[in-house]
Structure formats: C-alpha cells, structure tokens
C-alpha cells in the first residue's frame, strides 16, 4: 500500500494583511519530509512574509500553520524554534557586538532546560566544542573570537548558516541564502544546503531568485505571485507553466 508521507509543515489558507495591502491571500503549502522545496516569486510576492508568518515573526490575519499534526499558528518564535525549526533572514541577522563564538553558542543556549536552570550553568565546554567543529566545517574557524560586526558579508552569511547548524534542526527555512555573496561562496553554500538535505536528512525550504539554481537543486518548487500560489510542482513542470512565465516575463 503506498503511504503518503505526512507533511512536516502544512500551511492552510494563510492570509496576511498589512493595513490595506494583501501580502498573502490564502496560501496553501506543504513541506514534505526530507525534501528540498524551493519558494520562488517576483519581488513583493509574499515569500518572506510567508516565512515570517510561519515562524511567528509576524502575526497572521487568517489561516493555519501545522507542524506535523500540531497547530502552531501564532506561536512565539522561540517556541517554534524549540520544535526544531530553524531559519535565516534575507538580510543577515547576527548579534553584531558579540563574538562569533557567542553568536554560535547563543543559537543553542536556550534549547534545553528551564530559564531558572540556566542561572546555574557555567560550563559550556560541549557547546564550545560543537561551535568549533561547525566553524571548521564552514572554514571560518579563524574568525571565532572576532566580533560579528567586523566580519565580511560572506563570512556573516556563513555564521548565519552555522547558527542554524548548531541547533541540529529537522526543518530549515532559508530566506535568500545566496543573495549578495560571490559565486564561489554561493556554490559552497549550495553544497552545505544539499548536505543538510541528503546527509543530515533535514527538510529544507529555500527562497531564491536565481531560477537556474533553483530548477537545478530543488525537489519541488512553489511559485507565489501577488500573495497567491500560482504553481506547485516538479522543476520541469514549473519551467513550462504558462502562469509562471507570465508572472516573471509578463509574456
């Protein structure tokens, strides 16, 4: 009997209004176990808003978000993170006046235990070792003790990715991980993303404008336009979808 795998994240009729503007107008989307889902769409089509609504950064106007079978609509971001859903932002968001190491450890310091218990934890050897390992893997171990604000943009992008890796997430949501980095580093970041999916068995959602890369790496692609989903399918199907072509090229 063929078993339809249960989606890890399920979005049902998600709506978001910014005053008069309808940023999201009833979006349905599923994120299946261990897939690499691409989310595309012209500027202002609601991709980042969708991610923000999914992770509790923005409140939703309507619709529901489910993690497996649990309704997580309007949960706090910190609680969603503790379910194993990690994300990055379109513009790199680090803690600028803190060292890279502190940024990295900060990404997991709240994962376990109670807030009160954290007042009695001094030793962080395990966390330090893990951060070191990930920084070496990303080839940025040499900037470990630098303040995050003193890093180059590319290095900041890598630290951002490193913070995601720190938490051993099961779901990773990446908002334009390739924007503003040079092609070599971009290639590296793609390799890291692919490894996340293939080796660490994460479920990954990636927002990216570069259609060539997206069609190349994604298992499935969802296209948004003006707050609505206009296409959802395999890369080959998306390539020939007339609505997608119209949205992108106006043809």
């Amino acid at each position, binding site marked *: 009997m063929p078993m339809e795998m249960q989606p890890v994240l399920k979005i049902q009729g998600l709506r978001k209004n910014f005053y008069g503007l309808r940023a999201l107008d009833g979006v349905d989307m599923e994120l299946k176990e261990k897939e690499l889902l691409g989310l595309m769409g012209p500027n202002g089509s609601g991709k980042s808003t969708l991610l923000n609504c999914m992770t509790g950064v923005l409140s939703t106007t309507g619709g529901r978000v489910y993690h497996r079978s649990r309704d997580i609509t309007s949960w706090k971001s*910190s609680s969603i993170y503790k379910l194993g859903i990690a994300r990055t932002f379109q513009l790199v968001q*680090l803690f600028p006046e803190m060292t890279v190491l*502190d940024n990295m450890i*900060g990404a997991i310091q*709240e994962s376990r235990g109670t807030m009160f218990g954290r007042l*009695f934890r*001094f030793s962080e050897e395990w966390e330090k070792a893990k951060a070191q390992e990930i920084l070496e893997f990303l080839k940025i171990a040499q900037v470990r003790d630098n303040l995050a604000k003193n890093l180059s943009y590319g290095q900041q992008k890598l630290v951002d990715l490193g913070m995601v890796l720190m938490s051993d997430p099961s779901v990773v949501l990446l908002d334009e991980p390739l924007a503003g980095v040079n092609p070599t580093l971009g290639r590296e970041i793609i390799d890291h993303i692919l490894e996340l999916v293939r080796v660490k068995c994460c479920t990954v959602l990636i927002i990216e404008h570069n259609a060539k890369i997206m069609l190349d790496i994604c298992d499935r692609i969802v296209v948004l336009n003006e707050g609505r989903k206009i296409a959802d399918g395999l890369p080959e199907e998306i390539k020939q979808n007339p609505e997608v072509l119209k949205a992108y090229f106006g043809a």
Partner: protein
Amino acid sequence: MFRPFLAKAWKFAVIAIVLLIIPRFLGIYTIYIYSWLLVYLIAAYGLNLILGYAGQISLAQAAFMGIGAYVMAILVTRGVSFWIALPAGALLSFGVGLVLGFPALKVKHHYLAMVTIGFNFIMYKLFENQEAITGGYYGIFDITRPGIGSLRFDSDLAYARVIAMVTLFMIIIMYWILNTRWGRAFKMIRENEVRAEIVGVDVRAYKLIVFAIGSAYAGVAGGLLAPLLGYIEPSLFELMISFDFLLMVLIGGRGRFEGPLIGIAVVILLPEFLRITHQANLLIFSLIAVIVLLLAPEGGASLWDWIFKRVTGRKPPSLTK
C-alpha cells in the same frame, strides 16, 4: 558546576577586606561620601544591567530607590528589623519593576524612556502626597541603623562597613548573573531582539526579569540609604536623580562590568573634588562629562581599555561573557 566561580572567591575576599579597611582611614565627611558612593553604585549596577546589557531603558531608578528607602523607613520606625526590611524593599522593587517591564514589551527607546519618566514622576508624587504613610513633604525621621543581637552598627564607620559588605554581595550576584546564560540572553536581546527570539530566547520573560532585577538593585540601594541619612524625603528620589544614574552608566560604559565604578567616580566623586572651585564646579563638571563622552562615546571603560593596551600591549580581560 560552581568551580569557575569559586576559583575567584579569594579575589572577592581581598576586595572585601579592602572595602572594610578603607573607611578606617576616612574622616567623618569622607566616610559619609564613601557610604553614599557605594549605595549609588548598587543602583548604577542595576541600571547597567537594564540599559547596558539588555539594551532597555529605565529612567525610574530613583523611584525604585525610593520604594526601597520608604519600605525600610516605614518598617524600621515600626520596630521591624533592618535585615527583614532590606529584602522586603528589594522584593517590592522587584515586583514593581516586573510590572514596569510590561510596557517594555510594547514600546522601545524614547517611548520607553517616557513611560519610565512618567513612572518616576508618579512615585515621587505618591511619596509626597501619601502623608499618612510616607510623611509627605517632610518625609520620615529617626530611621535607626541596624545591629545583630547586641552588636550595633550605629557609628558611621560600622554602618559604612555594613554598606560595603552589602554592596560587594550585590556586585557578586550581578557578576554571577552576567556570567551565566542569562547574561548572554540579555545581550542577545540588546543586539537583535527578533533574532534572539528566533533562536529560542523567550524575549518577553527575559525583559521582565531584567527590569525586575535592575529595579531590585535600586531597592536595595534605597534600603541602605535610609538608615545612612537617618531620614528620607521625596526630593531624594526625584527624576533628576534617575538622570544621574543614566549619566553614570553612559560615562562608565554601557554593558561593561567595570562601567558603574567609573561612572560613580565621575558623577559623584568628581563634583566633590570640584567643590574647591566654588561656583564654577557645575560648569567644570559638565565640561568634563562632555569631554569624556566625546573622547570615548563608549564610556570611560573604553578609555581604560585604551590605556591598558598602551601600557601592556594586550587587550584587557573581559569580566563577563
């Protein structure tokens, strides 16, 4: 678990002995200044936690000092022990601080400053108008100093030592808090609230607790201040005093553990030395304050870093995470 902390115990012991010995060599007036300095230091540490580490703003530190002081005065004049009144005042400040934390969940920066200024003003008016409890404009007199059994700390010297020990205790507690994960969580909130929440920091809970702790520090300061003076009146806790604390934290260096030390040295001690210039003292003080902030916008602590680096060629060790 406590090992890294206990390793520093001998350093704290040395500081304790120094703090106990210093007043032995001071005169009547300088002992008073010494005590005053330490009391203000506690409240400044509280504000440094709120403003420097967690990046929130509170201009109500004087009001919380008032809460601590009035609790102390009211309880002590009714025969309650100092040792009960002091934590009671701290606890009440903690509770009220927690409540004042709620606006901080909604508003930021200047707006939050306005809210806390309003709170300071309300508290000042309460101290002034609730005559039955607070003695109104004239305040409360005859606040006795503490003792343990038959041992009394009535003399200025003895009470200065009590203050010194309580201050050291409060600073050690602060040092502890900032060296645990709470310290990092506070900084993460200061640096990037959205990102902090995204990596699991319960921003709401931490913001409330930071206001509560910072306010409790002011409460302890107030509790010590009342018996030091022997009387209290509302004008001790007016808004301008809150600005003094703000100046201490800014001049000392926001989010630097040694900041408040430098802050009180400049804001409290310097005007004392400038008394020799008579009328010009405020003018000179303001000028020095402006120059310090121009030279070192990050506060005096960064000036200290610079000197340390010049002399030793190394970066000074960081005191907290």
